[in-house]
């Protein structure tokens, strides 16, 4: 194992986390607790696979996947803002809905004989001894967007209003800002980003399988919390998780004090670290004050 392999693997693993976590950032900064990241990613992954598989066109596939995630996100807006359903409840029911719907849709409509689905064009870099590294559009987005999000919040009117609504929707309303509209836009953005994350996950594998997002939405949310709801620290937290995962893949099969460590122990490591990080680091980042408020 070389440092370069680990680093490349980290970047590769981190991309869906970053996209999803930024999606969570948009929604939670506007005050909507978003446990539904997982479901939106899953829905996008499934739709992308079905549409890309049947049309043979990667762009249409990704477009459909993102569209599905946006639809689910708008449902989320409807439930939390118009029906004032508890944010955690609506997020979890969206996940449940997505789990069922993705299994159903894929089972009913996917063309399963078509092999790997078409994916967006990529650029392959030959790194000599370290192997090859594939740069995709998603990867570029994942590494550009955190900085873009940072300037967006600091430098634009929409960013300021997003921040204000997430902190105190009532006061923002008195200043002529419309919280419902701000949140609608924020959740649509969440849809786009989680949609991309889902499409990326299914593109990496080549075909859809049940529950293939495998809890990445929750990890992304944990990264968002550890990152104090700020784009750059959140990005760093995602990289941290990915690094653990990359190292873990490399460390499997190693021995400690003469005993073989089961691979599951390494696999559990990132989750354990999250728990410990939540236990230790909480309080460093301040949550948006209006989180979960009507």
């Amino acid at each position, binding site marked *: 194992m070389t440092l370069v392999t680990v680093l490349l693997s980290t970047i590769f693993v981190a991309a869906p986390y970053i996209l999803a976590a930024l999606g969570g950032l948009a929604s939670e900064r506007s005050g909507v607790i978003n446990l539904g990241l997982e479901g939106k990613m899953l829905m996008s992954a499934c739709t992308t696979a079905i549409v890309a598989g049947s049309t043979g066109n990667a762009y249409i596939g990704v477009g459909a996947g993102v569209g599905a995630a946006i639809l689910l996100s708008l449902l989320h807006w409807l439930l939390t803002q118009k029906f004032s359903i508890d944010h955690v409840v*609506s997020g979890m029911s*969206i996940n449940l809905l997505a789990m*069922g719907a993705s*299994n159903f849709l*894929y089972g009913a409509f996917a063309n399963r004989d078509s092999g790997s689905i078409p994916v967006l064009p990529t650029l392959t870099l030959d790194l000599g001894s370290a192997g090859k590294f594939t740069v995709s559009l998603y990867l570029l987005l994942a590494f550009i967007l955190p900085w873009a999000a940072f300037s967006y919040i600091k430098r634009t009117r929409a960013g300021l209003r997003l921040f204000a609504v997430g902190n105190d929707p009532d006061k923002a309303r008195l200043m002529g800002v419309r919280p419902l509209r701000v949140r609608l836009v924020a959740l649509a953005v969440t849809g786009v980003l989680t949609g991309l994350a889902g499409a990326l996950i299914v593109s990496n594998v080549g075909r859809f399988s049940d529950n293939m997002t495998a809890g990445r939405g929750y990890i992304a949310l944990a990264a968002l*919390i550890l990152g104090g709801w700020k784009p750059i620290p959140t990005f760093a937290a995602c990289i941290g998780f990915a690094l653990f995962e990359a190292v873990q893949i490399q460390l499997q099969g190693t021995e400690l004090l003469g005993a073989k460590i089961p691979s599951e122990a390494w*696999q559990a490591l990132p989750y354990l670290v999250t728990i410990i990080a939540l236990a230790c680091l909480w309080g460093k980042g301040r949550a948006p004050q209006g989180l979960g408020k009507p």
Partner: protein
Amino acid sequence: MKRTFAITGLCVGGFVILWLAIASTGVSPVAAVQDLLRGSLGSPKAISDTLREATPLLIAGVAVFLALKTGLFNIGVEGQFTVGACAAAAVALRFPGALGMFMGMIFGIVAGALWALPAGWIKAYRGGHEVITTIMLNNVAAFLTTALVAGPLKDPSQESTTTASITDATKLSHLYNAGPWTINSGLLIGVLLALALSWWLKKTVSGYELRAVGANPTAAATAGIDSKKVMMRAMIASGAIGGLAGSIQVLAFQHRFYAGISSGYGFDALGVALLAGPAAIGLLPGALLFGVLAKGSTQLQILGIPKGITGIVLGVLIIAAAAIRYRRNKVVES
């Protein structure tokens, strides 16, 4: 009025989507519902199987419900169930007989409680959201028990990662077993738990205090209630019940532990608890409904409808129930 309209619209919309989904597979929705009901409630055997499906959901539902009343979302029942099942199997295998069964349950309860403890502590004293920590703990539980069942607990005579089966004397006995009817004592435990919780929440001071913390933690603190301690205790109790559900799954139904034994019971239990409504009694029909869907979905798969349809049904039901429950007239003050 407008709101009632909107909620009706939401429910009708959900129903239409379901209808269209089923119809899109080429199956008549009416036939699908008939098959679903026939498969789950059509015969004594089917009813027995449905109740068997409902039992772990009911007990795990009680676990989630208890936490929910404290304002906590214990998504970690999945993990507590798994460690409970694993602990119960390990103990029951070592001590065959009634003692093993009894100790298996105790160890399952303790394992579940211990598994919930970090989440409770982090929530109460560090402010970390319990949903995230419990989901992380679920993953850790899955990996940990898989490692155990692949290593020290593995039955060497088998290919797959599973423990050996517990002896007949160690099994949790049937409550009623005659002809096509088989009803396990586990169901009785679940029903008693739901009734006891219902009574406890309503009639005891500690239940009152727990509900106060769930409804308004600040007001509870002002009322002299140690919210943090209550949260901690509720989470641990919830985990203990989750562990009990896992141990009963092993002792009554599966008779062994294997990787992936939970198959999403934790998430389904959240659905049961959300559907139950304000009173714990509601857990009984909630669990039954889930049992019907779980059992009936096998029937639907035979018809060619993917099993994900039940997830859609549940999602729609939970959303509709939540929308109706949270309907509230806002009092506007000048």
